[in-house]
């Protein structure tokens, strides 16, 4: 059971994540968009959009620090466990609350504005459900367990397990001993990763950082679309 949950499932979900993105980019570039609903409603979005997105970016940075940086590195750098805990819990609480507030407002806005609700697809609803669950459990872990409760040193088990997946030496036993709330958060996140490429979340990977360095005016020649374009598969000329 542990092997299925913490070894097989992660690889299935991450395969779906990687292959799914490749497939989507290859075959559905036209559908690769934020599908913004700002034109329908602006007042709530003006607060909720930035709140959620900047919050989730903070969450991303926090996860990168917590999961990818081994405990031995921070202690080697002279950062005590207490200092790390203080930074991670305070930053995590702030980012988590921003994310939750933003997400609640966004979902409320989506449900209560008729035009937006009408433009919401089945996949959107599934995605919001899963994303909401991941965020909720994650916030519970930060707030209830780590801030108010006794705390759990996830860097001793969850983080090590997470890294072990990427070096292809997964250690299921590490996760089996983690608190149930952390287990649930990891499982829900895996589900979200599996679904990710088939949702609007793909827009994360089009974050337009290249805009900062490219020239303002873009010129393109017609040729790639016209004369030089290779015939589509199945439509090659006779004898080619």
């Amino acid at each position, binding site marked *: 059971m542990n092997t299925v949950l913490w070894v097989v499932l992660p690889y299935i979900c991450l395969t779906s994540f990687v292959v799914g993105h490749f497939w989507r980019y290859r*075959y*559905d*570039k*036209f*559908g*690769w*968009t*934020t*599908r*913004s*609903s*700002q*034109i*329908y*409603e*602006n007042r709530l*979005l*003006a*607060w*909720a*959009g*930035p709140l*959620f*997105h*900047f919050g989730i970016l903070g969450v991303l940075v926090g996860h990168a620090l917590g999961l990818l940086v081994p405990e031995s590195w921070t202690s080697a750098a002279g950062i005590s466990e207490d200092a790390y805990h203080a930074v991670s819990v305070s930053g995590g609480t702030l980012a988590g609350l921003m994310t939750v507030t933003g997400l609640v407002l966004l979902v409320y806005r989506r449900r209560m504005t*008729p*035009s937006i609700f*009408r*433009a919401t*697809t*089945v*996949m959107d609803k599934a995605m919001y459900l899963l994303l909401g669950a991941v965020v909720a459990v994650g916030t519970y872990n930060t707030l209830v367990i780590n801030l108010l409760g006794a705390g759990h040193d996830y860097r001793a088990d969850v983080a090590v397990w997470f890294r072990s997946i990427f070096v292809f030496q997964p250690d299921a036993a590490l996760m089996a001993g983690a608190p149930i709330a952390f287990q649930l958060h990891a499982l829900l996140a895996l589900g979200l990763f599996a679904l990710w490429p*088939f*949702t*609007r979340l793909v*827009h994360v990977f*089009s974050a*337009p*950082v*290249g*805009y*900062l360095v*490219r020239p*303002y*005016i*873009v*010129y*393109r*020649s*017609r*040729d790639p*679309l*016209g*004369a*030089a*374009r290779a*015939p*589509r598969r199945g*439509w090659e*000329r006779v004898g080619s």
Partner: protein
Amino acid sequence: MRVMAQLGMVMNLDKCIGCHTCSVTCKQAWTNRTGVEYVWFNNVETRPGLGYPRTHEDQDRWQGGWVRTSRGRLRLRAGGRVRRLLQIFSNPRLPGMSDYYEPWTYDYDTLLNAPAQADVPVARPKSLITGEPMQIRWSANWDDDLGGAPEHAPGDPVLKKLGDRVKLEFEKTFMFHLPRICEHCLNPACVASCPSGAMYKRAEDGIVLVDQDGCRGWRQCVTGCPYKKVYFNHRTGKAEKCTFCYPRVEAGQPTVCAETCVGRLRYIGLFLYDADRVLAAASVENEHDLLEAQRSVILDPEDPQVIAAARAAGIPEDWLDAARRSPVYALTNRYRIALPLHPEYRTMPMVWYIPPLSPVVDVVRDTGFDGEDSSTLFHAIDALRIPVEYLAELFTAGDPEPVGRSLRILAAMRSYMRQVNLGEELDESIAESVGMTGEQLRELHRLLAIARYDERYVIPAAHVEAGQSLEELAGCSLDYSGGPGMGGIGPFGEVSGTPASVESFHLTKQRAESDRYADLPEGRGAVDLLTWSGEAPPEGLFPPRRDNGQPGNGQAGNGQGRS
């Protein structure tokens, strides 16, 4: 000098009767789809009026276009690159649906299926956004022909610039129609605003397009464009805009709006311009100098140096020939009567306008004077400050002199041509008074009044012959409009498909110009069986008969029988 070619348009506003035929045909061709119900790539506004979307010219509010910084550089008015990226989660300067209008249909089913009853059944308006019954409160041309003007028109941002004295009397004074399409600017702020780099200016002809596969729906282009001519497709989540009907233009046909214009007021042709000088011209300090700066970027197609540089830049000979015959170059730079719309946005717009003399003529005639007498008209142009100043706010960043000059030329042409037509003795001083010769006035009159189709539209075909024939062979591509590639909404949102018909317009043109569908060039391999009468083998289906009388490919019919 880096010579580039640019397709441009000139509209003669005196001829616009506000019939909206251009808008309707454009909508039928391009935006009759879900997601762009509210979108009019071409719209006709009544001026003074709020425009579409409402008050789009109020750049204090919408922050479109460029501003010149104190150090003389150009910056997007809505903010630089970092600021643009920080605002992608919620763009504070994006017009909402209500700033355009909420599109609707009618509940026709009630009319058709109503049982016999005492009361006449009513088709209620139904929102195309929410699907609910709605109150119609605004549309793309709600204030058409100054309808509701006492209430709405004072909100016109252009009128506001003129100050209070206008407000009480303007609706008695003047009115004109302003058709608007994308300006296909030389320095497009929408392209500069696009974080994804999906918007681009075509190097061959300067048409500004959105790469539908590259657009990620960040919505910054809508803010960047000061004319609000980039629209957000709320179904696909992509930006869409006027394409200058590139599939038609590539085949040498005018755009749909120009082709169907009842008043024949649109001119399409080529500009040659110096791409190296665009930025400097757009950055001149005094807004009143922008018009001349913009004209100076456009190169004289007769100049041997320009021709040599253009050849070096790879511009084909037939394009150079078209540039020499270009009606738009004649109107903007030779006669210098066409003016750009809002040059103060510093985008170098390439759709130009000949300001309307008719508001002035109307007043002169209504007050009992001769509306075709040049001295009367000259005096009226000077005396009727409000129309001239309003036009100046539209076309010359508020400088009344160039507008006055254009109007005086039109007035001079009017009275000179009356003398010609009535066989009176010609008064050459009329022409001299506007710095022209009588011969030039006749030429201008010919171009403005009686130019034929091929004089108004001088459009060289694109040089992609090989590509076009490939496209023709791949005639079963799924991307044609209405085909499976255009499919509906899937579980992830809109499925892939090009919104534009990619049918080859070369073929369409040949069909349109030939007597019957079978009259296609040999060997194209394209036969329209749908319209084949069945009486004789359609030409093109079989190879031509060989010279020795042997039928080609074993076909015994009259393969040559072109009747």
